[in-house]
């Protein structure tokens, strides 16, 4: 287990050094790429709680990612146009303050996860995979055909939202915000994994009946995990929207759900840093393979296939050798 810890530290150090170096040497796009990786990693950390720890294979986490994005888009566009979101029965104004947007994004995606989880967790296995996918698709088609916030065109926000005391338009400062949030989420998830709750959640993944018979309501444990998981992914969605200063229904597409899953598998299912390493690797692959050939998806597909077939436990699983308790 020690070695996994070293890998985690190295990943963390790289996430600090690479963008800092890029910033100093005047390569802002590398910082942007790193920001993208960190935000995707955050989305993956969220899903990993449900998928890695809880064994809940959600194929619809794009729903929370998208809701987070749209919370940012809606709040900021109203602030941008000085139009209140709601006047009756009470006044709700838009905002461009990041902390408020984050909070709303977390709450809204948690509420959605509560609803979707409460219904989906009645099923299991493939049915769970597919019913979560169905909820994602529902939202996807809803946002495309909902005219108020741009439909398929999405919403553009011309200026990045603000964080007190920082200049968020400066790539490195925005990166810093995302990095700190990722670290906070990692810390939180690590605490959860080690808590009685985490023990029960992962125990239920290994043997549901065992956890039931010690008097723990597995459904409720999973639901809580699902809600936290959705909330973290929702926060990532809000950051992603701020990175691009743009939201659109593609944030809800099933390909996004698939990509978030890919990060986890690439890095290592149930490993704390799995999604972080996976997202970073995916962004690197996308960046370098994209320049290689017009048909670069073939290479990407082949690499993914290789990881699934030959590197069980993901990259961290390969590097850390020893199987940790969570991957099955």
């Amino acid at each position, binding site marked *: 287990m020690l070695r996994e810890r070293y890998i985690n530290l190295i990943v963390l150090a790289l996430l600090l050094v690479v963008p800092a170096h890029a910033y100093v040497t005047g390569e802002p796009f590398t910082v942007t790429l790193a920001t993208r990786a960190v935000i995707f990693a955050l989305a993956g950390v969220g899903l990993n709680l449900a998928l890695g720890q809880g064994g809940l*294979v959600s*194929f619809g986490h794009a729903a929370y990612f998208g809701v987070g994005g749209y919370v940012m888009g809606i709040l900021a566009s109203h602030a941008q146009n000085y139009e209140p979101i709601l006047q009756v029965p009470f006044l709700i104004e838009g905002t461009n303050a990041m902390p408020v947007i984050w909070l709303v994004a977390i709450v809204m995606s948690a509420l959605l996860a509560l609803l979707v989880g409460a219904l989906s967790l009645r099923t299991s296995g493939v049915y769970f995979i597919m*019913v979560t996918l169905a909820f994602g698709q*529902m939202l996807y088609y809803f946002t495309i055909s909902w005219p108020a916030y741009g439909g398929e065109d999405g919403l553009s926000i011309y200026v990045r939202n603000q964080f007190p005391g920082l200049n968020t338009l400066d790539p490195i400062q925005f990166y810093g915000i995302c990095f700190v949030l990722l670290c906070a989420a990692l810390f939180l998830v690590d605490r959860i994994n080690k808590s009685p709750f985490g023990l029960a959640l992962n125990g239920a993944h290994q043997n549901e009946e065992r956890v039931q018979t010690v008097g723990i309501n597995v459904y409720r444990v999973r639901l809580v995990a699902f809600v936290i998981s959705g909330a973290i992914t929702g926060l990532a969605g809000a950051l992603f929207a701020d990175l691009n200063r743009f939201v659109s229904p593609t944030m809800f597409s099933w390909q996004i759900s698939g990509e978030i899953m890919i990060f986890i598998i690439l890095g290592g299912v149930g490993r704390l840093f799995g999604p972080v390493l996976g997202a970073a690797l995916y962004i690197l692959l996308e960046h370098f393979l994209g320049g290689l050939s017009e048909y670069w998806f073939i290479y990407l*597909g082949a690499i993914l296939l290789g990881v699934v077939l030959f590197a069980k436990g993901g990259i961290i699983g390969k590097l850390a050798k020893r199987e940790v308790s969570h991957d099955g």
Partner: protein
Amino acid sequence: MNTLLLIEQILNGLQFGVMLFLMAAGLTLIFGVMGLINLAHGSLYMIGAFAAAAVAGWTGNFFLALIASLVAAAIVGALVELTIIRRLYARDHLEQVLATFALILIFSEATRWIFGSFPLFLNVPEVLKGSITLPGGIQYSLYRLTIIGIGLAVAVGLFLLISKTRVGMRIRAGENDREMIAALGVDISVLYTMVFALGAALAGLSGALVGAIQSVEVGMGEPVLILAFVVIVIGGIGSIKGAFAGAILVGLTDTLGRTMLPLVFGSFMEASAATTVGSALASMLIYILMAGVLLFKPTGLFGAT
């Protein structure tokens, strides 16, 4: 909406459902027998359509094209099963989803590499062109009626295959107990390859049939794949009967939903708002249907509990 139109729309729903069944049957069979979630099933549909378009363009014969779609999809299916898929049977669903997702990327771009970025041409054969008058004076496309016919024939054929033949018996046994069938001396890996190729062939056939009235292009398989998953989840995964019921239900819900909902909303809303709301709801309808079914029957209509 008058009765004739309603009947025509019901026929359209049936045709859509039957087409979905061809996709869903293979998917559900593969899941039932091997326990595999195959996202690349949509790629086999695409391969069938491209093979048909290529052969039709070359020979000008639609029926040869249909055969080509069956053969090409079955061969590709068997090859993929032998090289990659069989390594996934023992893996969990998550890894299957990922590996077959990777296969989609490979198949899509490889197809584009071979056939180019533009859609291909495939048309309804002369003999099936135009429409015929059904009893009651309904004008209906002959080709669509043919699709309904082929779909029903495949459904009956599959049912007979599974319930009456030796291969079907092995398939049923394989669903229940993999070790038992291995102990019986049936070469399980040959059986798996056959089942996978059969599922692939059905997907390919469906791609070719649909390709004649739709666009033969890269990426055509994924929307259908998702619908086919909705179908088998509603019907109960692993059940051919369920796939059939689910397919017809989804076909009818979708077709009637998108014609009726704007009208329903129009009865109490302003016309353009009704169109918007109705269409939006219609596009979500089958997912709502699926969530609803799973709420009451968490393993689908015909799923084992």
